[in-house]
């Protein structure tokens, strides 16, 4: 099963990369969202997958149980999802503010921080 998940992970990475190579910052944001999914799924896959049995210990049971899904990657992903969501919100709002302020979501037109004339043209002392 990991094999198929790995292919899906690769596909998501590819699409995410393609999106992030766009001019439109909105597409970049979507690329970020996709990337988050890809990474989460990657960690999930790398923790090896088990079908159906959640890492929840049945009531009254206190010892070691087997056959459950690997809980650690799940916890890590949970953390990563929430962080990813927070950062996603940020870049989204940032994009919005950049759009509002710069009048574009086209990254090619975002040249205020780095205009053409930032370089010294001749020697002076």
């Amino acid at each position, binding site marked *: 099963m990991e094999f198929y998940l790995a292919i899906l992970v690769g596909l998501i990475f590819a699409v995410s990369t393609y999106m*992030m190579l766009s001019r439109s*910052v909105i597409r*970049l944001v979507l690329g*970020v969202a996709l*990337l*988050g999914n890809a*990474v989460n799924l*990657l*960690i999930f896959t*790398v*923790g090896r997958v088990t079908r159906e049995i959640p890492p929840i210990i049945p009531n009254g049971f206190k010892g070691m149980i087997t056959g459950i899904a690997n809980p*650690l*990657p799940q916890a*890590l992903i949970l*953390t*990563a999802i929430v*962080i990813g969501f*927070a*950062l996603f919100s*940020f*870049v989204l709002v*940032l*994009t919005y*503010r*950049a759009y509002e*302020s*710069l009048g574009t979501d086209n*990254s090619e037109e*975002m*040249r*205020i*921080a*780095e205009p053409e*004339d*930032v*370089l*010294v043209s001749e020697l*002076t*002392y």
Partner: protein
Amino acid sequence: MADPNLISEAMRTAPTLLGEWNILVPMLGPLVVAAVSVMFRGKDRIQFSLALFGTLIALAGSVSLFFDVLFNGPQSLTMSGWIAPYGIAFTADMVSVIFAFVASLITLLIILYSPADIDKAFVKSGNYTMVLILLVGIHGSFMTGDIFNLYVWFEVILISSFGLLILGGEKIQLDGAVKYAFINLLGTTFFLIAVGLLYGITGTLNFADLYQKVADSDATGSLAILSIMFLFAFGIKSAAFPMYFWLPAAYHTPRITVSAIFGGLLTKVGIYALIRIFSIVFPDGNGAAFEIFTILGALTVLVGGLGSIAQVGLRRMLAYVLISGVGMLMIGIGINTPLAMLATIQYAVHSMLVMTGLYLIAGVIGRMAGSFEISKIGGIVMQYPFVAICYFGLALAVMGLPPFSGLWPKLMMVQAAFMNGDHWLVAVILVGSFLTIGGVGRAGIQMIWRGGDIDTPDGQYEPRGRRLEKHQLNIMMLPIVIIFLLTFLLGIFPEFLIQFANLAAGDLFNTDLYVKNTLGGL
């Protein structure tokens, strides 16, 4: 209650002593204060006091931890009562505490400078809270002994740096922030990917445990890829070639205190992580990582140096100087000998201090001249000779000229490179240093010595900027003078730092000590 036998096999049973909490203080102190300051958001009066308080706690914690580590060796505390590698361990060795101390000190200085730079509206929007959170993330990164936990602290740093960067919402900031945000987000994401895959190979997250598991692993090919991926991810964070774009795009856009924090601290955390990971997880580089370090480092030095020559803006120039310094650090890590690590740590401390100082003084200069454009700045030595002296000293420091701190790490780095047989690196370090002289020197000559604007005729001096009020200048100059004195003292009494940096470098090569402290002699 649970079976005592079970508890004794799963948990730490020895009582936790008061002193052991010390390792938490630099992180937890500012966090609690930051949480309080969030609750009092909008009350600008107490924000500054809280920030000062939080930073002082962090500083006090760092200092006390420093001595603890100095006298008693590396310190470790595994959280939540579990034993490492299952719980998250904080482990502090000399490297951590040196970085932690300098970071706290710099933050304190910047906080002291802030009232002269930060508007009320900024304070109400959480400027100081973000600084505190940044400090939390930085200290967390320095102390943690767990690679996923490191990722979390990196995210803490990242989000607070985003906040500081956009505070004010100017067009230029937003533009810079867009570039900064996406590239840095990718950096941490790649880090997370690498962490995930590393877990997939070793099944563990704790540094000390990783040290053993990676060494025992026969998945050398995958580990080689991962080591380079870590290098790549932290390379983005540290602004190494060719992943540094975000830095020149953004560092000149926010308030000067923010530039100073960024310049002084942020890239160094990436460097710290590289040092940590490549001393514990991949101590023998697992392949070609160290060669890549030196190659990228060399390119970074050169590109940074060239960039600093080409800039018309003071802050932009400093950004490139900073990048060049990152290259030096990368080179040091790549050489990977005790001397090189000593040089790296020494350089890191020097660079943290000096870059902060330079950005802060750029703030004074910019305020004075009404612009950060070098061609519009002039006559500083006539208006404020004291400012000129400070700039001059910091510039010398960053160029690596005596009698300031930059000389020594450069010297050690050259020595380490030569001793390691990397003769070409000697050339690169020297050329890089030369380029910095060209950039920083020429900018300084123009800003300090020239009469006024670029068109000012010879001998005519026309002050252009607004005169700073005296108390404002005093607020701004105090931290700068402290940094100036520190870099001067480190220039003439380098041994003061070198002895500690040497211990730190020793710690980095004495991995067993770290492992033993973290895993409790397992």
